[in-house]
């Protein structure tokens, strides 16, 4: 693969919670149109890194550059408008809004921030169809099951109009066939829609099968980085996380 210019540069990020160092001088570069898998044991700092990139946490040290612009410490809603969207590990639907309104809100306030309701609606419906939730458009979001909530949140994140999308355990809790569907969908977002995606995932089958590159965090530090097949065989990664070598 030809080396594409980077869309996100993370330089020496340190994030502490009291005495706990959640991230220790983490540096990471993400290239355009790349699908980066972010893995590591529980508590290794994956979600914290997402929260730092998207502005929910301010890092003590280090800078984050998105498209050459320093976005360190910007408020989350500003970062969204620049084209960085995310989903949450535990979905956060707007329970008493309908599924369609949930996704429309992203079109109305996201990057384009269209004032036209018709436009927002058609964009939202488009993404709901894409994730296969269009039939549930008019029901209240709180009635969705966990899989549907995750898909709705994906559609909502997509409706903000991102170039860079951060997915936090999108397939956790899904059964195998659902998982493979979603994984394929994520891959298509990169291949067809030209997005750049970082996905945090524990399901190795999912990460290893679709990622272009894998980044491994361990105790807040970078443990390894490389192609899925390299990571799967890496003795350090096996010891810290995988337990045994896995087939890719």
């Amino acid at each position, binding site marked *: 693969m030809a080396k594409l210019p980077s869309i996100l540069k993370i330089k020496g990020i340190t994030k502490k919670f009291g005495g706990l160092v959640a991230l220790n001088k983490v540096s990471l570069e993400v290239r355009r149109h790349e699908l980066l898998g972010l893995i590591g044991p529980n508590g290794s700092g994956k979600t914290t890194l997402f929260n730092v990139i998207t502005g929910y946490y301010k890092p003590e040290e280090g800078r984050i550059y998105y498209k050459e612009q320093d976005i360190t410490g910007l408020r989350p*809603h500003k970062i969204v408008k620049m084209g960085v*969207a995310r989903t*949450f590990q535990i979905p956060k*639907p*707007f329970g008493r*809004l309908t599924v369609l309104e*949930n996704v429309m*809100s992203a079109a109305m*306030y996201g990057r384009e921030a269209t004032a036209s309701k018709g436009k927002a609606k058609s964009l939202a419906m488009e993404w709901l169809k894409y994730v296969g939730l269009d039939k549930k458009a008019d029901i209240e979001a709180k009635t969705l099951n966990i899989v549907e909530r995750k898909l709705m949140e994906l559609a909502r994140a997509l409706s*903000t109009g991102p170039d860079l999308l951060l997915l936090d355990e999108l397939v956790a809790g899904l059964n195998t066939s659902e998982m493979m569907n979603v994984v394929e969908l994520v891959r298509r977002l990169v291949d067809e829609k030209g997005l750049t995606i970082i996905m945090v995932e524990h399901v190795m089958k999912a990460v290893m099968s679709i990622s272009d590159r894998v980044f491994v965090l361990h105790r807040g530090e970078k443990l390894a980085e490389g192609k899925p097949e390299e990571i799967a065989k890496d003795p350090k990664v096996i010891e810290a996380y995988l337990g045994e070598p896995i087939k890719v």
Partner: protein
Amino acid sequence: MKITIKWITMAILLILALILPLFANEFIISVFVQAYFWAFLALSWDVIGGYGGQFSLGHAAFVGIGAYTSTILLESYGISPWMGMWAAGILAGIAGAFIGITSLRLRGPFFALATIAFAELVRLLLLYFKNVTRGPLGMLITQTGPQNMIFEQQSYYYYLMLASMITGVIFLKWFENSKFGIGLVALREDEEAAESVGINVYKTKIIGATISAFLTGIGGTIYAQWLHYVRPDVLVKLDYSTQIAAIDIVGGASSPYGGVIGSLILVPLSLYLNSIFGGMIAGLSLILYGVVLLLVVVLLPSGIYEFLRRRISDIMAKKMEKGGGKTA
């Protein structure tokens, strides 16, 4: 079919409301005047309290600011309340923005406490600046005539309050489907998720508080004109603030009709209880009123409107089924 029934019901209710003064006596009319007034306040409160989920217990402050603004403009500068009500709304709106900026980073009960403190501050300021507000004595409205929003008959106030309330309902109908309304509900449901779609949570809350206070301030002007006087302890009291919130919650918060239903039930009830038990044992009417509030909140936690809406749609669904069964 459902939609036509809804419109027919609305039209009938509107006609009934319009012709009521023709056969009701002054007392009944004045009960409705108050019910419509409180409904308008409850609808105004709903913007930030219901849709925005920010529980204000200080809305009486905005009533007071609105009432005093237009009354001072009228009595000291001869400016008609028809103009003064806009100034009242704007000043109350500024006060709403102020409390939003200072307190909306607080959550839940802490915001509610801050609003109580704010209302108390407004009451004290009204008492303190005697040369403008005439302190605890308050101000009488001495001007007369419709051009000064003073009417000889209750029925004029009746139509004025009715128009205000209907405007409030129409506003909320529009508001709840607007971009801003959806943003406000979104942040109520989940602030972090709201930020993740690009909503500036803090700013949206402040604008919500400003709109809510603006409307409440206009309500204050109309109320002052109906009372013919303003006084700090009459307008700015915690009782009023809680009543505004209670009416909206009992009727059904974050809906354009909740405030109306709540007010049409609670205001006549409280007046009735007061007239029967008010003279007997001190506080008895308040206790009974409290019991009713408690029952509604416990039995119908999402409010009367939501309860009725669900009931009606259940009945409609059953009827449809029956109808379907017959033709099959």
